[in-house]
């Protein structure tokens, strides 16, 4: 069949305007604002955010058009008319326009997303897109096999609704592993990229089902019999879906992400201050504030002296714990939100426990903020806490004033002792 005949014959093209309409509606209704709010133009984030809402529609389109096209072949008795031609070739010929329409639901929002964010795709940003494209092929094959057995007028809407519901609703149900094996991806954070294991868990069950149905429905029953091909198909599906389940069964609400290489810009020495390239314009003011605050704190007896203060923005949703030499601080977002001084003070005041006694911890922090000349910013943070009322704030100020009235050397001793004492007492209840 030549291209012109195929395009005239296929129903996929008649469905294409609707698919494009859905893609455009969801991009401008949902995705565009999410990209502006959260992606920072970071390519893996642009791809994942653009695709999140489109996966269910792309898979539903692929499986419905697959079922519809195979029903047309069956009703036209193409299989009987061309017994000598490869069935794979015939199936592929009618499926590729269907797959192309499903792919347009994935490709269009990604292209629009990069255009809006004025960013360019990178290799590490593409796996969620390639995963979606592969699963569109798998869904079209599943739909094709179903359409070989069931009337297309019934099969197409049923498989479309089934695929859409299974994929879209997977994020609303527990156990969580459901959402990790049906071919979706949640937004990726700055500094992250899709991990190979998460992609594998997503593709195995659906691809396994497609291969199993293909083995059973199209080819093998002619050579090794229906029973043999059925057993083989069950084995393929069970092993692929079982492997996907085994990979994802212990994951939480989010699949594991891999850490991406993020180019950083650094300045200074002891401490060297580093931010990702996208924050480069803010680096001079960030570095000045870091070094000024550290100098003031050190002269007051807060003896922490890191060799590196680096932005935790590239750590994505899993920030690394600071060490005495390397501090991971939310520098870019902190500077933008006017909270940088608070973050530096909190990094410098290192309690030897996770949950220090709150009253003493606040006293130490406000004392350190006074020494760093940043009382206002730290106080405004305290005021946001409705559990810490005005009477408590007044008591806090009296305690800090009492400490500040002592000689400098005594204050430094009080500070060192307080770090230990705050951790000797039980912390907040939970």
């Amino acid at each position: 069949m030549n291209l012109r005949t195929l395009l005239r014959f296929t129903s996929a093209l008649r469905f294409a305007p609707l698919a494009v309409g859905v893609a455009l509606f969801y991009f401008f209704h949902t995705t565009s604002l999410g990209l502006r709010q959260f992606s920072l133009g970071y390519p893996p984030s642009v791809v994942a955010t653009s695709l999140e809402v489109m996966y269910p529609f792309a898979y539903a389109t692929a499986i419905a058009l697959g079922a519809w096209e195979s029903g047309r072949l069956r009703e036209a008795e193409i299989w009987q008319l061309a017994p000598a031609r490869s069935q794979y070739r015939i199936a592929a010929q009618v499926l590729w326009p269907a797959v192309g329409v499903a792919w347009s639901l994935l490709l269009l929002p990604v292209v629009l997303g990069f255009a809006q964010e004025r960013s360019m795709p990178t290799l590490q940003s593409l796996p969620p897109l390639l995963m979606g494209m592969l699963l569109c092929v798998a869904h079209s094959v599943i739909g094709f096999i179903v359409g070989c057995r069931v009337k297309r007028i019934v099969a197409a809407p049923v498989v479309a609704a089934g695929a859409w519901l299974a994929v879209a609703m997977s994020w609303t149900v527990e156990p969580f592993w459901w959402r990790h094996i049906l071919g979706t991806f949640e937004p990726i954070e700055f500094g992250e990229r899709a991990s190979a294991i998460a992609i594998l868990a997503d593709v195995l069950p659906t691809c396994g089902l497609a291969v199993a149905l293909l083995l059973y429905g199209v080819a093998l029953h002619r050579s090794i019999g229906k029973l043999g091909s059925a057993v083989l198909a069950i084995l393929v599906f069970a092993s692929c879906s079982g492997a996907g389940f085994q990979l994802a069964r212990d994951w939480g609400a989010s699949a594991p992400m891999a850490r991406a290489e993020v180019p950083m810009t650094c300045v200074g020495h002891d401490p060297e201050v580093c931010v990702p390239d996208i924050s480069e314009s803010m680096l001079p003011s960030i570095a000045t504030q870091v070094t000024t605050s550290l100098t003031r704190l050190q002269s007051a007896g807060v003896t922490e002296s890191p060799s590196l203060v680096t932005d935790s923005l590239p750590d994505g949703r899993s920030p690394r714990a600071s060490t005495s030499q390397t501090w991971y601080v939310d520098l870019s977002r902190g500077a933008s939100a006017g909270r940088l001084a608070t973050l530096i003070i909190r990094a410098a005041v290192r309690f030897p426990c996770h949950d220090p006694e709150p009253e003493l911890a606040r006293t130490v922090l406000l004392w350190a903020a006074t020494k760093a000349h940043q009382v206002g910013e730290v106080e405004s943070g305290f005021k946001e806490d409705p559990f810490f009322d005005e009477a408590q704030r007044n008591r806090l100020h009296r305690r800090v004033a009492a400490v500040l009235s002592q000689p400098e050397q005594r204050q430094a001793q009080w500070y060192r002792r307080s770090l230990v004492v705050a951790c000797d007492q039980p912390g907040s209840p939970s």
Partner: protein
Amino acid sequence: MHFSTRVGIVGAGVVATVGLSATAALANWSSYISSWTDGDQSRRWADSAYSQVQFKGCFAQYGTTDSVNIQLNRDISGLPDAHYDTKTFTNCFNGSNYWSNGEWTSLPSGNYYFEATKVAQGGSCCLLFVDYVYQDTTSAD
């Protein structure tokens, strides 16, 4: 595009959404709860990586069980929302000065809200009252 420019755009985006159903704020907020039953939802807020919800002074009218299940959800316009872990708050039912704390980590960026999925014994039996609700977007506090 530079990070500082991005933040400006974020602010503009949030202002633009005021009045829409899924309005999100970028800062911590506090409030109270009156007459919530199963399925009632909080306001939306923008968050990433970490989120904390605290209740102080809880009371379940008609309840025989002093607890409330709080589920964190990510708002996805036009599709079913993504659900995250559910926390059971009990300590705040011990009195007006007792509080319960729910923390969620490793969250993707998005607009979030919490939902009371089971007040007291559940089945929309009861009405929840909370004196203070505090939502914190940062783990640095």
